[in-house]
């Protein structure tokens, strides 16, 4: 086995190496190096994704690096790197003492996601899921002396393991019908329409629904977001959900063709309910992280709408939405972290008069929120528009209309933050200090949001190319 044959799994190897080196260094006391080292590892792994030969199969064809897998890996690693920028300046004691563990868990979780999106085999898929999820539970409860963190971690853990159990249960039915654990056997079995097969797939849908926090499996998200550290939450709100969506695509869409429309009613209902619940529950929130948690649930609903179209453009627009959501949401969370570091508060009052204290920071936050709200000239507008477009092509006028109305609800709670920042007077005059890594992270998100808004073409082309391979 030559070294060249390892290139297709280069990113995974680099992530694994990073994780091992970081935890070993931690054991020998070099904790301060953990953050920068992980960053180097992520950047290297991100670069390595560009060298993967597209469509490569390894490990007896059980591991595939197709366009979707590479796209997803870039999303995971890129968002993890942005999250790292946020956590570099965290001053909490837990970070000083257990920095190695934090970064180890983060790297392992990214590794789990990377395995998950490449798996062509149910058991490997499940292993990927667990490898991704277990570090997430640890990271949620990372500040263990904080009374809310263990509670949130426990809640997340119970919901997460229950959903894993449901996934495995579903897989057992699929195995029972197909007699094999390879994913390639699913389309054929679905076409045959065996009732047990349908039961198994329904269970899989429910189980993955937990992971992406779709209604009615969304309850864990707000508590988890509120308790966990903000840079981690920024990443948690994007990457694991993207992973869940890729798993849904692998199981329900890829190679299935028109038969996948069987799931359209179920996914449509799920999408509609998730949009409604997420948007309505976000309104009364006074903690900005909880507000973003519920708004994130609503965004999952919009992405599900793209999935519900079960068409090339639907999937493509969902992927586009994921990228737009990543930039907008992570940017907003990084601003939240900045404010939290300076004001020691995650409440809405902390934003009073921000426009007069730090105009650029306030403008960034406004742009992120407007992007999340779907306003023209920033990324979120195109994302919503394309999703609606794809859905209208399938004739889902009702859901599109509902989604369009709910964007108004969403703008209400986003504008409440804008009101604090722009209309109300500040409590104190001095500007909010922004540390260099955070500044850089916010800048990256800003460039992403504005760039995608001004010039969405290349991203659309990329998403369409990725999606088109699934239907061929």
């Amino acid at each position: 086995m030559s070294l060249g044959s390892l290139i297709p799994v280069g990113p995974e190897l680099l992530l694994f190496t990073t994780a091992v080196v970081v935890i070993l260094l931690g054991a020998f006391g070099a904790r301060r190096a953990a953050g920068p080292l992980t960053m180097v590892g992520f950047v290297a792994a991100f670069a390595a994704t560009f060298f993967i030969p597209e469509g490569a199969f390894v490990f007896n064809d059980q591991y595939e690096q197709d366009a979707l897998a590479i796209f997803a890996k870039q999303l995971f690693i890129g968002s993890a790197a942005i999250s790292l920028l946020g956590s570099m300046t965290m001053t909490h004691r837990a970070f000083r003492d257990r920095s190695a563990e934090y970064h180890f868990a983060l790297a392992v979780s990214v590794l789990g996601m990377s395995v998950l999106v490449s798996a062509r085999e149910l058991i490997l898929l499940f292993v990927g899921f667990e490898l991704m999820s277990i570090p997430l539970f640890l990271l949620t409860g990372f500040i263990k002396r904080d009374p809310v963190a263990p509670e949130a971690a426990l809640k997340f853990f119970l919901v997460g393991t229950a959903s894993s159990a449901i996934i495995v249960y579903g897989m057992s039915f699929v195995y029972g019908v197909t007699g094999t654990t390879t994913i390639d056997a699913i389309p054929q079995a679905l076409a045959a329409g065996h009732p047990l097969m349908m039961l198994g797939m329904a269970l899989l849908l429910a189980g993955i629904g937990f992971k992406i926090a779709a209604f009615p499996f969304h309850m864990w998200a707000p508590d988890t977001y509120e308790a966990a550290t903000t840079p981690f939450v920024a990443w948690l709100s994007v990457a694991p959900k993207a992973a869940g969506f890729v798993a849904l695509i692998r199981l329900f869409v890829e190679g299935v063709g028109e038969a996948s429309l069987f799931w359209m009613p179920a996914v449509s209902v799920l999408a509609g309910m998730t949009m409604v619940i997420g948007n309505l529950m976000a309104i009364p929130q006074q903690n900005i992280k909880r507000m973003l948690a519920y708004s994130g649930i609503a965004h999952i609903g919009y992405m599900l709408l793209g999935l519900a179209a079960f068409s090339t453009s639907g999937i493509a627009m969902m992927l586009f939405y994921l990228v737009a959501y990543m930039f907008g949401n992570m940017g907003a969370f990084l601003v939240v972290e900045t404010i939290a570091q300076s004001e020691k508060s995650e409440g809405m009052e902390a934003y009073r008069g921000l426009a007069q204290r730090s105009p650029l920071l306030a403008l960034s936050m406004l742009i992120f929120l407007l992007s999340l709200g779907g306003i023209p000239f920033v990324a979120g507008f195109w994302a919503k528009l394309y999703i609606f477009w794809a859905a209208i092509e399938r004739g889902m006028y009702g859901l599109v209309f509902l989604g369009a109305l709910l964007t108004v609800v969403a703008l209400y709670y986003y504008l409440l933050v804008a009101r604090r920042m722009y209309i109300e007077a500040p409590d104190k005059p001095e500007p909010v200090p922004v540390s260099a890594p955070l500044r850089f992270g916010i800048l990256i998100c800003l460039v992403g949001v504005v760039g995608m808004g001004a010039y969405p073409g290349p991203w659309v082309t990329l998403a369409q190319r990725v999606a088109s391979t699934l239907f061929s």
Partner: protein
Amino acid sequence: MAELPILSIMTWSPFVAALIVMFFARHRPLLVRWVSLIGATVSLVASLWVYCAYDYDAAGFQFHEEFSLVPSLGISYLLAVDGISILMCLLTSIIIFAGVFASWTVKQRSQEFYALLLLLVTGVYGVFVSLDLFIFFLFYEIAVLPMYLLIGIWGSTGEVRPQGIFGWAFGRTGVGTKEYAAMKLTLYLLFGSAFILVGILALYVAGGSQTFSFLAFEQMEFDPTLQSWVFLAFYIGFGILAAIWPFHTWSPDGHAAAPTAVSMLHAGVLMKLGAYGVVRLGMGLLPEATVEWVWLVGAIACINIVYGALSAMAQTDLKYVIAYSSVSHMGVVMLGAATLTASGLNGSVFQMFAHGIMTGLFFALVGLVYEKTHSREIYKMGGFGTMMPGIATAFTIGGLSSLGLPATAGFVAEFLTFLGAWESNYSWWLFPAVFGAFLTSIYVLRVAGQIFWGPKSTDPHFQHLPDAQGTEWAALGILVFVLVLFGVAPSIAIGPIDTATGPLLQRLLGQ
């Protein structure tokens, strides 16, 4: 000179001015004002030039500008104007020109104020000149969004608290405060734009020819059921901006809370955007559905006229009176469009213009009165005519136009509309419309009499009030001049309007 992109110059010059103001004029309030004024002047000159150079005999859309933006989706930057849009652009340019003068005294954060105001104007121009529906929608959103900050930061909270049996409940929601008004206005209008977006996308998908061009859509025959619901979507979506009943309640709150120039622009021009949208997209693209739904449009317009006038009568806050009178007058606009007659449609478009100038004048005056008296309560004021004769005269001229006195623009508009209503299939529309005009004369004359011509108020604050000064005259002078000019010589406007409404009617009734 034929290739000069005059429409782009008109549309983007306020935007360029906004950028300059934002980046180069920090802490230099006078520079902010002069740059804004230059931006507004450039667009005014451009719109006048377009108005004069428009070829009436050729009619149709002229001054085409086009380049492809997103070829794969068929989105292109396609601009052109016809007889209706040139008049609307002229209206916009006059109002913003006057508006820059009217806000000369804004002190708090004036840099941001002017930048947002000019940004808003770019959106308004863009809507009137774009023929690509996608670009149209983008401009529409630019015209709506800056409102939130403009009202929220620079607005004023009314003094008249909610009363009556629901007073407590209204008080709880913060009704009457600028924050409430800003949020209400923004959400209502975005709610409307959701309808518009779905309608546009539905047409695009149904058309199936990978284009958003208005001209291409005009050639298509859409399925009647699709037409029917898309028309309703456009009617509700744009109608909210045109303050159709029962979606009008954002407008009094919003206009009363907004700062002077924003009220002028919003009531004067933005509400016309709604009516323009209904006429251009609804009636222009969906002829069968228009004929099917005019009864609804006309009936609701009648409710608007009477309900708006009655509500205006009941107000004790001066700004709310003007705001409700806009609701009533927008009813006249919608009624004229619904008549589907030549005179009705011409009256409708003429009323868009006349009401724009008139309400702009009113809000400028209310702003001046408020600045000098710090009061908007009608029944506390009185006899100001002797102290501020200029303001009093301008208010009276505006009021006479509002109630439709001959030799003012308002008369021409209302006369044509009433004529159209009588000629239409629903002649009974005439009665609520005329009744509304009668009610208008009651509330306008009562307000003018109380504030300016009645017995002098005994309030010690109101004993020595200055008249308008300096730049303030500029805003009043321009608006009064235009109001009378178009009343005396309405053919200046009727000419171009006719070139656009004629073919539209032919298309509607030719079915």
